[in-house]
């Protein structure tokens, strides 16, 4: 089959690879009908996530049709149409039973590698480095899906692929980021990053009852999308002072909760500040650039919540711990526990509360994946989200 393979920093290629086989009795094999490029794929692409290996198949947002099942799979049949959550979860360990699926205790066979880097190991993820399991991803014609009874959700009505595909990652991720904020009537939420996850964090904050949502980015087309589709108030950090804008928009209180939907490759309006962290990154003194996170912490109102759904890989420098501690902030974070949100979010899509397909700007064939990566990374052609059809 054809699959989009990681070859090294800034290099992916669609290659011929073997078809996946059932390796565990709870596996299913899916013929991929739609798959997408995630912002996280760009972190892998740009070489910021350790333990990638030449030849790894990328992609953790995908859906398709079940073509094979292991003998212990009970809920799926060949021919079922499913969306696959990006975290692999066994559904049997204490953590899964508590609903924290992305921290599954059993789904990462390379846990010892993650323990060396992270202390304890999270669960496995498709196409997302060897320390997170070494599972091939879904930017391919076929994909093996472990624990097929726990992850994939069946789509039994005629909802088009493009409306349900993002249940795999970015819609629940944005939703969890908003849910972390414990939104109560009158709350103002600020979201750093108007990429696809930021768009869904904005939309979800409104769904959960936020009074106003402020979105911070530097690309006008992204800010406009958040304004036009979800009613967010845009702040372009290259044009205005973020702190001033937030104080003004909240009459001096500061946002009740701040969502970091940017992560480790953030940019900064000041070239000096950007260069400082970029230099530390290049010299391996820090792995992640935490501009958005620093701002989110400093600008949050006293006693508020900082919700981190942007991806970090290793270490950050100059984290404003004093601001967090003295002002009683709550920090919440995590890879999304997608399985927890599939059913309720599918219901919201079905009854028309949200149509996630609004973020799609580019539709390409799988063979154009390398072009999709550069277009998305360089924000060419007002790129927001690339969907690939194998």
């Amino acid at each position, binding site marked *: 089959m054809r699959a989009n393979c990681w070859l090294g920093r800034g290099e992916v290629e669609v290659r011929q690879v073997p078809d996946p086989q059932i390796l565990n009795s709870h596996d299913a094999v899916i013929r991929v009908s739609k798959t997408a490029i995630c912002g996280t794929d760009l972190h892998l692409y740009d070489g910021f996530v350790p333990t990638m*290996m030449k030849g790894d198949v990328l992609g953790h947002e995908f859906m398709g049709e079940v073509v094979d099942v292991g003998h212990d799979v009970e809920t799926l049949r060949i021919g079922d149409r499913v969306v696959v959550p990006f975290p692999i979860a066994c559904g049997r360990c*204490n953590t899964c039973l508590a609903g924290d699926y992305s921290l599954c*205790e059993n789904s990462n*066979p390379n846990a010892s590698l993650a323990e060396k880097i992270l202390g304890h190991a999270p669960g496995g993820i498709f196409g997302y480095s060897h320390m997170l399991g*070494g*599972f091939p*991803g879904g930017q391919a014609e076929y994909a093996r899906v*472990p624990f097929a009874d726990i992850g994939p959700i069946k789509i039994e009505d005629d909802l088009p692929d493009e409306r349900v595909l993002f249940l795999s990652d970015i819609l629940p991720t944005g939703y969890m980021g908003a849910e972390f904020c414990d939104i109560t009537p009158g709350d103002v939420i600020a979201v750093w990053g108007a990429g696809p996850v930021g768009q869904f964090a904005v939309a979800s904050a409104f769904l959960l009852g936020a009074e106003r949502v402020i979105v911070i980015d530097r690309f006008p087309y992204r800010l406009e999308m958040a304004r036009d589709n979800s009613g967010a108030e845009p702040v372009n950090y290259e044009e205005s002072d973020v702190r001033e804008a937030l104080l003004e928009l909240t009459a001096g209180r500061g946002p009740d909760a701040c969502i970091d939907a940017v992560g480790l490759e953030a940019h900064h309006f000041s070239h000096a500040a950007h260069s400082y962290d970029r230099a530390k990154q290049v010299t391996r003194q820090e792995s992640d650039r935490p501009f958005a996170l620093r701002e989110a912490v400093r600008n949050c109102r006293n006693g508020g919540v900082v919700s981190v759904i942007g991806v970090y890989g290793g270490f950050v420098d100059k984290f404003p711990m004093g601001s967090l501690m003295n002002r009683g902030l709550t920090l919440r974070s995590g890879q999304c526990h997608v399985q927890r949100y599939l059913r309720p979010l599918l219901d919201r899509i079905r009854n028309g509360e949200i149509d996630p397909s609004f973020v799609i700007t580019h539709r390409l064939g799988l063979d154009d994946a390398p072009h999709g990566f550069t277009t998305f990374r360089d924000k060419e052609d007002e790129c927001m989200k690339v969907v690939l059809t194998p």
Partner: protein
Amino acid sequence: MSTQNSQQQFRDPQARQPGDQGERGGARGAVRPDALGSALGWFGIGLGATELGAPDLVARAIGADDSAVSRTLTRIFGGHKIAGGVGVLGSEQPGRWLWGRVAGDLLDLSALALVAARRRVTGAGLARPLLAVGSVVGVTVLDVIAARRHSRAEAPGHLVHARSSTTIRRAPQDLYRRWHDFESLPTFMYHLDSVRTTDGTSHWKIRGPAGRKIKWDARIVEDRPDELIAWRSVGRSDVRNAGTVRFRPAPGGRGTEVQVDLEYQPPAGAAGVALAKVLGEEPGQLLAEDLRRFKQLMETGEVVRSEASPTGSRPASRLLRQHPARPLGRA
């Protein structure tokens, strides 16, 4: 049964503190030098013979003056090297002789430092002594590597202890029953080749490098249903060892805490080297991965496999050469 002595050597694992590493000490054994050790042995004999036979040549090569003192010193160093080489190649403890070579290297270096210092005073060039220093440093590094490797293998009798624990969401009796079935331990304990049980004695087998088998017999020495199983090697075993697995309910309905202690006394010689290759530098890590697979087996019914780790979890040190994350087989 020759277990009386060895039994006394095994302490009660429970007496250990969390985080304890293995301990060393005890009887001696014999090993042959490996390829690097032999090469260094022969190199020492060759260079020593030159120093002894043609001290003026050597002195000139390193830039020393051709005085009677330097000739005598060079001869003494040469004698030391020959003795070291013979010791490495011929003795039963090449590791000790290799450390002797390291000491000789340090003497060489200090002599060269003196030569260089004198040439600086007299204004002669430093190229020759520096070149000599570089070569000696290179040889010293090799000597240290070989010496460390050999002395590790020569310290049999040192008791290796490994402990690991995990929490499994199953009742203690399920886990106890599964573990008690020794014959099925290799399903998740990958360093074991097979375990067979005949009337109260279990026969354990590890497959070492080049198909070499390491075998031992063991008997259960304590058996408390749903709580604890302790076993110990008996009779003529390739490796004397003992193990204990404990099951106790985890707090707050979290399942069962499983703790395993293993102790073994690596044998001398080739069997010891083979065992070390199987168990690696960190037997505790190996045990931790055994327990990870045991947990997967008991919670999900099978060992979890990814394309990068198709046989299941492994210690981090063995994950460096894994398969890429793409489907197995041919395109």
